[in-house]
């Protein structure tokens, strides 16, 4: 696919060059030629997008018909998926009720939103801090080493994270209880203590994700032209002022995009983290249960595809609404950074 598009671009490029020559030969004020030239440019841009658009249609937009599943009670009939889908009963919003059963709904929504907001705020702050740190360290070799190390946790699968957390928090063998024993304090069964887990989960999530975010910010920082800093230095700006007035504003667009995307996912609870890290301990549910884990657990027995689709749809719609609100407010206050 890539080869094809490169060939196409070469052909089109030569075509366009030829047209440019024609353009120069003609009168430059001829508006007719101006508009044709602009249209061609738009078509060229769209050609650049074409392979991506095809991918999006096949992988993301065509499957949207699956959303119908959220409103039907699926039953199999001899004749394949579409026939079965067609004949299955409409149950409209029945598949959504299990998500909103009063008390449970409040707990999982509170947990999901609460954790995600903390993750976004704290995560952005820490990753930007680290990115600036990486770029400012004098010893480049050391900086590279630290970058690699901090990125490491991203590779660890959630199941292993559960075990690693357990190596700290286990009653008999955990490091924390070991430390307590040293000071003659009685060990605590951490997996029954709800209060401490929000902190543990935030720390684990930070450990897991800031490597990823920080290198994105680092790339953005490295793209800032050096001459800006040199000019500021000549003007007598201190290092701290340089960071405040050059670095951070230059990466503001990147920060806004990352935050926007994170907001879109605010109704998704990071399943791996919340399911495995507390070792699926039941007594911790009030502080560790989020929408994704709730759906998974509730449907573990019935595996009702309609209800899973309903949960997906609910999370997507809520995320979409929030993104629109955020983008809308950006359009008002900071139109340059509004995404659409």
């Amino acid at each position, binding site marked *: 696919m890539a080869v094809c598009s490169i060939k196409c671009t070469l052909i089109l490029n030569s075509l366009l060059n030829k047209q440019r020559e024609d353009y120069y030969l003609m009168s430059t004020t001829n508006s007719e030629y101006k508009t044709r030239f602009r249209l061609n440019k738009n078509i060229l841009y769209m050609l650049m997008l074409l392979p991506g*658009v095809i991918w999006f249609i096949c992988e993301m937009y065509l499957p949207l018909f699956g959303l119908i599943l959220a409103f039907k009670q699926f039953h199999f009939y001899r004749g394949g998926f579409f026939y079965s889908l067609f004949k299955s009963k409409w149950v409209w919003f029945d598949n959504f009720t299990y998500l909103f059963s009063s008390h449970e709904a409040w707990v999982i929504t509170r947990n999901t939103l609460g954790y995600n907001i903390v993750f976004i705020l704290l995560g952005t702050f820490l990753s930007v801090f680290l990115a600036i740190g990486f770029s400012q360290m004098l010893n480049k070799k050391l900086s590279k080493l630290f970058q690699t190390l901090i990125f*490491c946790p991203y590779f660890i699968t959630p199941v292993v994270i559960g075990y690693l957390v357990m190596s700290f928090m286990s009653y008999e063998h955990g490091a924390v209880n070991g430390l307590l024993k040293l000071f003659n304090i009685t060990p605590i069964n951490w997996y029954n203590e709800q209060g401490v887990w929000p902190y543990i989960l935030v720390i684990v999530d930070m450990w897991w994700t800031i490597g990823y975010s920080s290198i994105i910010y680092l790339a953005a920082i490295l793209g800032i032209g050096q001459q800006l800093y040199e000019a500021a230095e000549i003007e007598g700006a201190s290092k701290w002022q340089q960071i405040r007035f050059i670095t951070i504003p230059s990466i503001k667009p990147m920060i806004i995009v990352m935050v926007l995307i994170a907001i879109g996912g605010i109704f998704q609870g990071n399943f791996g983290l919340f399911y495995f890290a507390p070792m699926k301990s039941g007594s911790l549910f009030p502080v560790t249960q989020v929408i994704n884990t709730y759906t998974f657990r509730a449907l573990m027995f019935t595996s009702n595809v309609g209800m899973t689709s309903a949960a997906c749809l609910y999370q997507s719609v809520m995320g979409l609404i929030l993104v629109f609100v955020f983008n809308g407010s950006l359009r008002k206050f900071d139109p340059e950074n509004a995404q659409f």
Partner: protein
Amino acid sequence: MIVRKKSKRKPTDISRTSNVTLSIIVGIVAVVCIYPIILMFMISLSAEKSIVMNGFNFFPAHYSLEAYRYLFKIGSQLLTSYMITIIVTVGGTILSVCLITLYAYGISRDDFKYRKFFTFFALFPLLFNAGFVATYLINSQLLGFTNSFLGLIIPLAISPFLILIMRTYFKTTIPSALIEAARIDGAGEFRIFYKIVVPLSKPGIATISLLQAVAYWNDWWDPLLYIDKPSMTPVQLMLQKTQANMQFIINNSSSMSTNSIELLKHMPTQTAIFAILVLATIPILCTYPFFQKYVVSGMTVGGVKD
């Protein structure tokens, strides 16, 4: 006369003391991040008996290479899986980066009439997930991805998230004056793209290459859906299968009317699972310096002379 080589201090560098403090802080974070990885490695070197008795320890009571011996036993399968993972990662990353940068560049141009529409077109799927049954249906039945490399590469080929990142990156790093100058000189759009924009964006491109490479390397979900044959199983899926199988049999041993001890005898121990984990993680980690070279190289590329 002896000429002493003094370390070049650029005027924009931070002071020595700040450097030391900063290095220490970042260093502590780095140590905290790497600690569990080393722990993983130590666990893979522990004897199974030591795990049962003492749990996971940084310094296990008994060392043993039994985990790696098990790996040697399944050696040929591990090798095949590695090959698959490497092919998918390299091929997928290249394809991915081409698609993503082309798309991102297009929508980053202010003179593209439909850029707002196509930005939303790319952002919408990020938020709106239609569930995996429909995707599976299309991929397996319409597009025929079962048991083929396409099934491992195409589903991850584009990340809407990275499109947006690259778009922002292009907007902030490439001065439009540069593009205008090139256009006046008579260059076509595509030539501008790969002769001017791409070299300037090395840090960005290197970053998303790394992230996509990691995404491909770590992916076990798509292989789970589309691959049945052991000869096409990548390393991460092998790991997931091995670990999950053990868990499953243990969980259900009371319902399964069979001797679960016998079944589990043929499965790896917990330490072996960590050994596979170590082997699954180290290679991709080692590619990080390779990408870093390009990320940092962008630092020295000059800007526009006003």
